[in-house]
């Protein structure tokens, strides 16, 4: 079922483009550019017609599975439906054709959109201002932690170079911390899925910059001690960082700002329905409490004298974290989403997301081990440990799910749950879908009992079977090599 590579499709001389002829007097290229700078042979790019290209990429698309194909309960990723109108309005020529270096007066519509989104997200999270510059969640973390460090440095507390991160945290949390020069201290999660306040108190010191927390956590559980946790961190001079990947559980119900968080990043490509694009682009806005606003990345978008403008005059700012102002077209989709939902709509989203997760969890908990018996938030984590004892792993079951036509949950994360399966159904699914999925999972649990080999050999109905990942690492083939080069 493999699809040929685009490089193997073409024939010399085939073309897929049509360009205007050169209507200015043509000069010899060697006259313009010294020969030593010029390419001696063309790159081995494909040589295909437009129809060849379209068929090739259409065929590739059909090997994929997206939210539009079906249920996609990938935990921590909030694979909700992506409204089509948002695609249309973000692609309007009045946005897509706007050059980012144009003068303020020429881009009032774009600046207004950014400014309004900033304030809307600030209200949703309980922050003062939000920068839309970070390109994804991890980039928001990086920016937020830079703000944390800049703040401590400003307060002459350069020694605060450690950061506390729970063992359930996403890998980007410690990785971002390392990139801003922080040493990571891991705090353990207790048997209820909370941080142990006593342990946290012990870890806090004058050297700790703050605590990075995902709430609800990646276990899908709300941190019950959040008030105490916030107090402990603040009392010893630290700041609270909120990883907003799981905001979909709490919109309009509680806000990071009200819980005591000082810095927040969001994933617009999760909570705010912008599609994930097969791996990106995302958008990872970073929001802060009032005291930290001066540290936000520049430019900050301001509204002054009836005009929107880009403000670079922020002496305490951490500076730019990327070119321009963020993934604008992604922000535009999130803005459109918020505008079409309103306050009641967003609260309804979170309520329904939590309802759906609990509903599915309840149907499955008799068939799979549930390590934390609590009401879950928008997602929940099961363990495949019972099935593992029968020799069938979570990976096997994940692959088997594909045979029944839906995408597996997140597996083997969070790391503290053995054989973890993290389900996030999202609010956009209805009861029939959840019932059907539960039925299939229960059937798979039965298959594990009755015919484990069947599950271990899955998947059978996908375009390709299980792939040899060890071989991929041992004998890396990371690009296509043209035949002529093979002979060299």
């Amino acid at each position, binding site marked *: 079922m*493999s699809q040929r590579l685009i*490089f193997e499709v073409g024939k010399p001389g085939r073309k897929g*483009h049509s360009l205007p002829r050169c209507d*200015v007097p*043509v000069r010899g290229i060697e006259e313009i550019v010294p020969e030593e700078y*010029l*390419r001696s042979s*063309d790159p*081995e790019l494909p040589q*295909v017609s*437009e129809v060849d290209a*379209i068929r*090739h990429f*259409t065929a*590739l698309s059909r090997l*994929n599975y*997206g939210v539009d194909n079906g249920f996609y309960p990938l935990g921590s990723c909030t694979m*909700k439906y992506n409204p089509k109108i948002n695609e249309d309005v973000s692609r*309007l*020529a009045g946005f897509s*054709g*706007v*050059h*980012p*270096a*144009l003068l303020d007066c*020429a881009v009032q519509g774009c600046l*207004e959109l950014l400014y309004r989104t900033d304030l809307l997200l600030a*209200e949703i999270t309980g922050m003062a201002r939000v920068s839309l510059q970070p*390109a994804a969640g*991890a980039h928001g*973390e990086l920016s937020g932690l830079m703000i944390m460090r800049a703040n401590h440095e400003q307060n002459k507390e350069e020694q605060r170079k450690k950061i506390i991160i729970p063992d359930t945290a996403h*890998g980007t949390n410690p990785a971002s911390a390392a990139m*801003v020069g922080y040493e990571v201290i891991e705090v353990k999660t207790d048997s209820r899925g909370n941080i142990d306040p006593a342990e946290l108190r012990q870890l806090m010191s004058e050297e700790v910059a703050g605590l990075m927390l995902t709430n609800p956590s990646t276990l899908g559980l709300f941190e019950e001690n959040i008030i105490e946790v916030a107090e402990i961190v603040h009392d010893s001079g630290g700041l609270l960082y909120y990883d907003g990947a799981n905001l979909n559980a709490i*919109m309009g119900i509680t806000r990071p700002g009200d819980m005591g968080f000082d810095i927040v990043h969001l994933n617009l490509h999760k909570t705010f329905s912008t599609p*994930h694009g097969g*791996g*990106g*682009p995302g958008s990872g806005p970073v929001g802060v409490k009032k005291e930290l606003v001066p540290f936000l990345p520049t430019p900050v978008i301001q509204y002054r004298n009836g005009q929107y403008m880009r403000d670079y005059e922020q002496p305490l700012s951490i*500076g730019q*974290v990327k*070119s*321009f102002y963020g993934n604008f*077209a992604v922000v535009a989709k999130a803005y459109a989403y918020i505008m*079409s939902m309103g*306050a009641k*709509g967003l609260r309804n989203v979170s309520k329904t997301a*939590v*309802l759906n997760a*609990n509903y599915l969890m309840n149907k499955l908990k008799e068939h799979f081990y549930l390590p934390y018996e*609590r009401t879950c938030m928008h997602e929940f984590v099961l363990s495949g440990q019972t099935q593992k004892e029968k020799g069938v792993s979570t990976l096997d079951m994940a692959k088997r799910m594909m045979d029944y036509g839906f995408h597996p949950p*997140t597996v083997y994360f969070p790391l503290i749950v053995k054989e973890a399966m993290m389900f996030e159904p999202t609010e956009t*699914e209805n009861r029939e879908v959840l019932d059907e999925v539960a039925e299939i999972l229960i059937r798979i649990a039965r298959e594990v009992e009755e015919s484990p080999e069947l599950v271990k050999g899955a998947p059978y109905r996908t*375009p*390709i079977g299980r792939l040899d990942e060890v071989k*991929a690492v041992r004998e*890396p*083939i*990371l690009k*296509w090599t043209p035949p002529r080069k093979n002979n060299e």
Partner: protein
Amino acid sequence: MFGYMSGTDSEKKTMLTEMGYQSMDQLFHDIPAKVRLIRDLELPTSLSEMELAGHMKALAKRNVTTEEYSCFLGAGAYDHYIPSAVDHIISRSEFYTAYTPYQPEVSQGTLQAIFEYQTMVCELTGMDVANASVYDGATAIAEAANMAGRITRNKEIVISRTVNPQYRKTMHTYARFNGQRIVEADYQKGATDVAELESKINSETAVIIIQNPNFFGAIENVKEIAALAAKHNILLITSVDPISLGVLKPPGELGADIVVGEGQSMGNPLNFGGPYLGFFAAKEKYLRQMPGRIVGQTVDGKGNTGFVLTMQTREQHIRREKATSNICSNQALNALAATVYLTLMGKQGLREVASLCLQKAHYAYSKLTETTIFTPCFPQPFFKEFIVKSRYPLNELNHKLLKHGIIGGYDLGSDYPELENCWLLAVTEKRGREEIDLMVKKAVETA
């Protein structure tokens, strides 16, 4: 308010009671009352689909666009032609509504497209390995500098002042917190001053960073700088304009160790600054220090060829604080657009686009410098962008040109105080001779 949700209220109520709850609020009993929001969020009243479309159109109308204006602005984002087929492919929802391809059996489309993309980036740049993309041209340089630091175990970065000011600003932001030191080397006559560059190298230096064509549009002597890096046993990072590689020598052939760049020019709209994509390629020996996702080819149990995310022990989800980068989501759909773009352009098309830019930019340059208002600034050969010095204040000039439907060049004075009234213009294949003539005419009239 349907909120894109599928379940009805009565359905939800049944689900709730079946679970033994009386109200939705009970689902949230773990949230302490003290932190509950007891009011509605203060957000505008929700809009219907029709109202939303109207609202967004009204915002969009308040922007100047390259659709209606003739654009001579570049400075890191370019108005190149995007074949219609690109958007048709990236609008297929099997591509755009999928997540990162963690489960290869249901993600071969994304994975193979990335494999093809990696191949094309290697072909263009003359490098051995490429990743699946990073956020943009600026973060690509910052990531590359980190990587060079890890490889050489040195902390100092020497960067030419001819590198895009936004890239340098981004690098400074990253470096302030990660312990690297950045030293900037000045330029002479519009290109990196190689002697000055060498004078900045010391035993702590990890890498030299240049851009080619540089921010002024000029073509740098990459080979000479690569030789300098080799002589001092340090690395060379080159940031390149991918379109220029249709005619210019690939940096890999010239001795670069890591090649990065802004990939927006390849099939991605201007979009007021994003989403774009950073491409990232290196010599094979540095593979294990690369940031980001990498796709590799392998086989399934039956021997069928397939693709997977590979070399993952570099990445955050496995290595956590010891990862080569924190990047998780990247710019996959933009990389797909670039892949479709390069496929359609193909072997000859990219050369054609590059030649058109080169010819038209030189035509515009000669027309401008024939006037009495604009004079040449630097003697270097250039590609699609160039600088002229204006006798007339640029801010006013650009404002007035807008009134004639023309987006003028970039005012370099804000980033380079010594280049006051120096105008950086970009001319892509989209600009016709008449547009160029009109721009020159209006610029002269205005002045």
